[in-house]
């Protein structure tokens, strides 16, 4: 009975405002929204004309790179932080309205939202302000490594070290967590986007072809890998030939993509190694036994766990449903809002 009642009145939500995707979790319902962080804006009558939002989310993502002059499909988040404040606010407003249609007697929601570890004051403030602007009653911030660890089901509250590597669209967060707090964490601005960028650059350099972001992402998902495997996969790709200026198709293999991804992958590996160096020895011993857990969309890159295993010599596991770990962890943190467990939230 109590559960049903609180389910009716509570409209608190947790948001993973990611560079690539935005996910929303509501109490009692679980994950209710998973859409790309993309907004398409239509500009009327010249540069000083009225701007209207044409589409948000999945619909807007289809427009990326395919828009005429009057429409602009943009990703308001970059490298894990807000690049365009107004549009982020509009996007959040749209998403919140979608999952939380205003009802009689309902008050504005409280929102838990996660930020990359090591965000600057300005970046945290921007996220807080845009959530408030989007209609939140109260905003709590949680650090991404913490949220990812809770979402992956790690024993965060125990006196044992747990290491989580969250590879998102814009950033990679490495965190060592013990007793409900972050002992050491680092954040590098390398993630899925940098992988895509590396693929685009590689193809331009070696094939003299220009491909778009969406195609690059598709290549990464289908034949991208982080460690040389026995099987070589191939894929036909279409792009514009730089010399001729004409669209052409060509075939690319997984080994080439592996070569293209070497540089961003090395940055992730060195971030992980650096964190291990900084970890206190007792926690290091715990991690040596349990290994590290990969979360975030980047964890789905084929054999990334293998690469980290070989580079560090530690066991590496991929969390269940890595894409939603952060938002599920933030959702679990929501439950703490009423119970006074504020230790996991951060102040700015």
């Amino acid at each position: 009975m109590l559960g049903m009642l609180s389910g009716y009145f509570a409209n608190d939500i947790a948001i993973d405002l990611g560079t690539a995707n935005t996910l929303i979790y509501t109490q009692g319902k679980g994950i209710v929204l998973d859409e790309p962080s993309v907004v398409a804006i239509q500009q009327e009558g010249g540069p000083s004309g009225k701007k209207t939002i044409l589409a948000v989310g999945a619909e807007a993502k289809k427009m990326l790179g395919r828009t005429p002059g009057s429409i602009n499909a943009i990703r308001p988040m970059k490298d894990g932080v807000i690049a365009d404040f107004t549009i982020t606010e509009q996007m959040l407003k749209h998403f919140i309205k979608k999952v939380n249609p205003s009802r009689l007697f309902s008050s504005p929601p409280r929102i838990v939202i996660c930020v990359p570890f090591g965000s600057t004051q300005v970046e945290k403030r921007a996220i807080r302000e845009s959530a408030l602007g989007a209609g939140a009653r109260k905003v709590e911030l949680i650090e991404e490594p913490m949220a990812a660890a809770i979402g992956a089901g790690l024993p965060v509250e125990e006196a044992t070290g747990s290491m989580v590597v969250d590879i998102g669209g814009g950033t990679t967060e490495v965190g060592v967590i013990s007793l409900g707090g972050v002992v050491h964490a680092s954040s590098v601005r390398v993630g899925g986007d940098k992988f895509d960028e590396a693929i685009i650059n590689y193809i331009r350099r070696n094939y003299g072809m220009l491909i778009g972001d969406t195609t690059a992402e598709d290549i990464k998902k289908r034949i991208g890998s982080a460690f040389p495997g026995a099987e070589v996969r191939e894929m036909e790709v279409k792009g514009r030939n730089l010399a001729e200026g004409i669209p052409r198709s060509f075939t690319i293999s997984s080994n080439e993509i592996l070569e293209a991804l070497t540089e961003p992958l090395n940055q992730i590996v060195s971030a992980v190694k650096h964190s291990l160096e900084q970890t206190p020895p007792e926690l290091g011993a715990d991690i040596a036994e349990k290994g590290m857990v990969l979360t975030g969309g980047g964890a789905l890159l084929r054999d990334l766990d293998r690469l980290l295993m070989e580079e560090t010599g530690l066991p590496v596991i991929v969390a269940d449903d890595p894409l939603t770990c952060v938002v599920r962890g933030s959702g679990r943190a929501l439950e703490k809002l009423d119970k006074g467990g504020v230790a996991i939230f951060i102040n700015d």
Partner: protein
Amino acid sequence: MSEHFESTPAPLPVPPQSVGARLRARREALGLTVEQAGAQLKLGKKQIDAIEIDHFESLPGNTFARGFVRNYAKLLGLDAAPLLADLERLLPKERLQSALPAVKEELGFNLAGGSASGSGGGMAGVLVGVATFAAVVGGVWWYLQLPVSPQLDVVPNQVIEMPAPVAPIANVASSLAASVVASAPVAVVASVADDRLSPTPTPTPTPTLTPVSVGTDELRFVAQGETWVQVHDAAGQRILSEVIPAGGERTVSGKRPFTIKIGNAPQTRLFLKGQPVDLAQYTNVNVATFELK
């Protein structure tokens, strides 16, 4: 190895091989040693052994148990999905809770640690608050004639309020089971107004609680040396899984047939309803795995 206790013919060799056994069989088929597999997975020999004997409790947690099994299956070229589905049944349920809810209690307890005596009072206050809230909400719902019946799982709260008005009138006839919960509030009323109630509730609570173990059988393990024991009942529910220290005893009850695994069978004695069971016939080296009908 898996003979039945009674002489019914076994239709299946064993409930399709356990997760660890399948991994082990595949590893042996590929000609890999435990050390080689461990080197590939960066796991210790102990951890690989634990996986292969389905001793997932000794791994650092459910997330890791799943991850290790997934990695192991990938290394051996097995499909991880069916293994993980079977693994879910083997994982200790209590560990699922460990990710967060425990924090609240611990945090609350630690914060209140300065005044340890206050924690009991706080808990009572919470209970009273919940009961009052439930009573108010229940009244409102009844008034609005909303369907109340599906919320039966909160019955104790409703029972508290119902007898209060009824007790003075009908207490002669109503020596119903309601008195289990209501005895405290009713007693206050009764002691002032009516003393006939006081003999009635005393016999009622005791008999209601006793007849629990109907249709179940009792298993008793006596360990002479340290041993690991796992028991599943007829429904496949794990009713016991732990290491019994030397000299220890465990008694569990459930429905037959039981599926039993004993890690150190020569040092363990098993009694079914007080009757000793001969483990020697099921024992292979040290481990006994069998079904008890």
